[in-house]
């Protein structure tokens, strides 16, 4: 069960309870709004606030992510209370989510869209951190797996003369046994080093993302795309591995770019 709350103003609090089996209930100041709310499909659910203003719940299923549920009052997006904390940029006072100005110093509060953008950027930064951890973890695991494979292969190469040319060509290139041995011994270390470099870059980008999110998320997306393609070149079947996670991460990153760009252009 999930509860969403919108404090529209001092006189109107809208609550949406999402229960199992389609048991959803929408209340305005504790009074239930009649009618059935469907959350599966793209839909709208119009109702009235206590002062007669038009309110509308919009449901938008989104690709590779949770559905978006938003409340609009007279066409204006409302901030969900979970997006907080809501602090005035100028004086630091805690304000109500949908105040347009700070009650203490009169500073303009950002529009509701900003909170959504900030959340997207935060999610993208989290995705970059997750990638850093995955690269590090994956690198260590792959190191040990490859090492044991290489040990087996080296035993098989032991019987061959070092100057002999290995009968099978690898990716169109033929190697002598001695060169092949060298390459095999290097293989696990190369995997470990490459993944550590990637993990370090991602960690650096996640850190830099706090200062300039657009640049950091942009570079992280490019690097992740390159990593996926490189793996696909080495082993075409690897595209299918963890494809859902890949799509979710890329969708998250692209949303982060879009939101960071929106905030950048709004500030300017």
């Amino acid at each position, binding site marked *: 069960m999930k509860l969403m709350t919108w404090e529209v*103003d*001092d*006189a109107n609090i809208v609550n949406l309870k999402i229960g199992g089996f389609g048991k959803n209930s929408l209340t305005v100041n504790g009074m239930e709004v009649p009618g059935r709310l469907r959350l599966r499909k793209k839909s709208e659910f119009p109702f009235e606030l206590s002062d007669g203003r038009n309110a509308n719940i919009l449901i938008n299923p989104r690709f590779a992510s949770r559905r978006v549920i938003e409340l609009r009052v007279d066409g204006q997006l409302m901030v969900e209370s979970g997006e907080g904390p809501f602090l005035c940029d100028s004086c630091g006072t805690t*304000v*109500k989510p949908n*105040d*347009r*100005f*700070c*009650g*203490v*110093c*009169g500073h*303009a509060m*950002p*529009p509701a*869209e900003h909170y959504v953008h900030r959340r997207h950027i935060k999610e993208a930064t989290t995705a970059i951190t997750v990638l850093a951890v995955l690269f590090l973890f994956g690198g260590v695991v792959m190191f040990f797996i490859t090492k044991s494979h290489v040990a087996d292969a080296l035993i098989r190469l032991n019987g061959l003369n070092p100057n002999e040319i290995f009968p099978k060509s690898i*990716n*169109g290139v033929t190697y002598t046994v001695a060169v092949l041995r*060298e*390459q095999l011994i*290097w293989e696990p270390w*190369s995997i470990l*080093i*490459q*993944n550590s*470099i*990637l993990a370090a*870059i991602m960690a650096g980008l996640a850190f830099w993302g706090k200062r*300039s999110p*657009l*640049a950091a998320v*942009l*570079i992280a997306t*490019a*690097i992740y*795309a*390159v990593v996926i*393609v*490189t793996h*696909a*070149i*080495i082993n*075409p079947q690897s595209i299918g591995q963890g494809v859902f996670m890949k799509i979710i991460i890329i969708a998250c990153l692209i949303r982060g*770019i*879009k939101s960071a*760009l*929106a905030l*950048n*252009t*709004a500030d*300017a």
Partner: protein
Amino acid sequence: MHDSSRNQTEQYCPICRRKLRPEARFCISCGRAIDISTDAPAPHELKQSGSSFKSHWKEIKQIGCLFGLLLSSSFVLGMIGRFVSPPWPQTIASGADALIVFVFAGFRYREILPLLDWPKLSMRSVLELVALALAFIILLNLYFTLIKSAGVPIVHIASTYSNAGWHVGIMLILVSVMPAIIEELAFRGVIQSTFEHIFDKRDALLIQAALFSVLHLSPIVFPSHFLMGLCFGYMRLRTKCLYPSMALHATWNALVLFKELNLL
């Protein structure tokens, strides 16, 4: 007197007629100062510049397209390379890259054309550029010597061509001249100038260098090629021209080639 009266009766904003909070000094819905003695700030509207978002998003998508196409060209090269013996796939892929980059350079010809004018450089800046180029070559040489002594195997470009018996002149064009022109046009031309609309000059320089290093598809050369990207991008910023970085890029590639062929 004033305060006690405010606490007892409900107060409404004189401008927008909304109910005020008991202790509020400003109206939360229009930003109007309630206490007349404080200077009333002009209730300023929040503005979102939607048009600049749209144009910048379009530019980012365009760069994404260029990057994606170059990446898929490498992917196709990798796939063909499994069945066709080198160096034909490499040759075709660099031809495809050239085509892609020229199309995108055509899209952004307004920014590219001024970069192709002959630069007017003073003697001093020429000397500075030469010093930078020398420092760059020494530093990169150091990096690759370090990597080599650590035992990291590096892909040799030249061997694929020389094994097939191709002439040195053709190799020089394919390995040194063509990539220099194409990559400079793409990264220092299209990408850097486009990102200069969205970011400041420093961030645009960093991002294009990052994209440049990443597109070489090998984490081991990320640091060295990031340095290359920074150096070329800086040259392009200083001279507002692509030729110096093209020359240095071609020189570096030629040096690597000659080294592999044991001509140096």
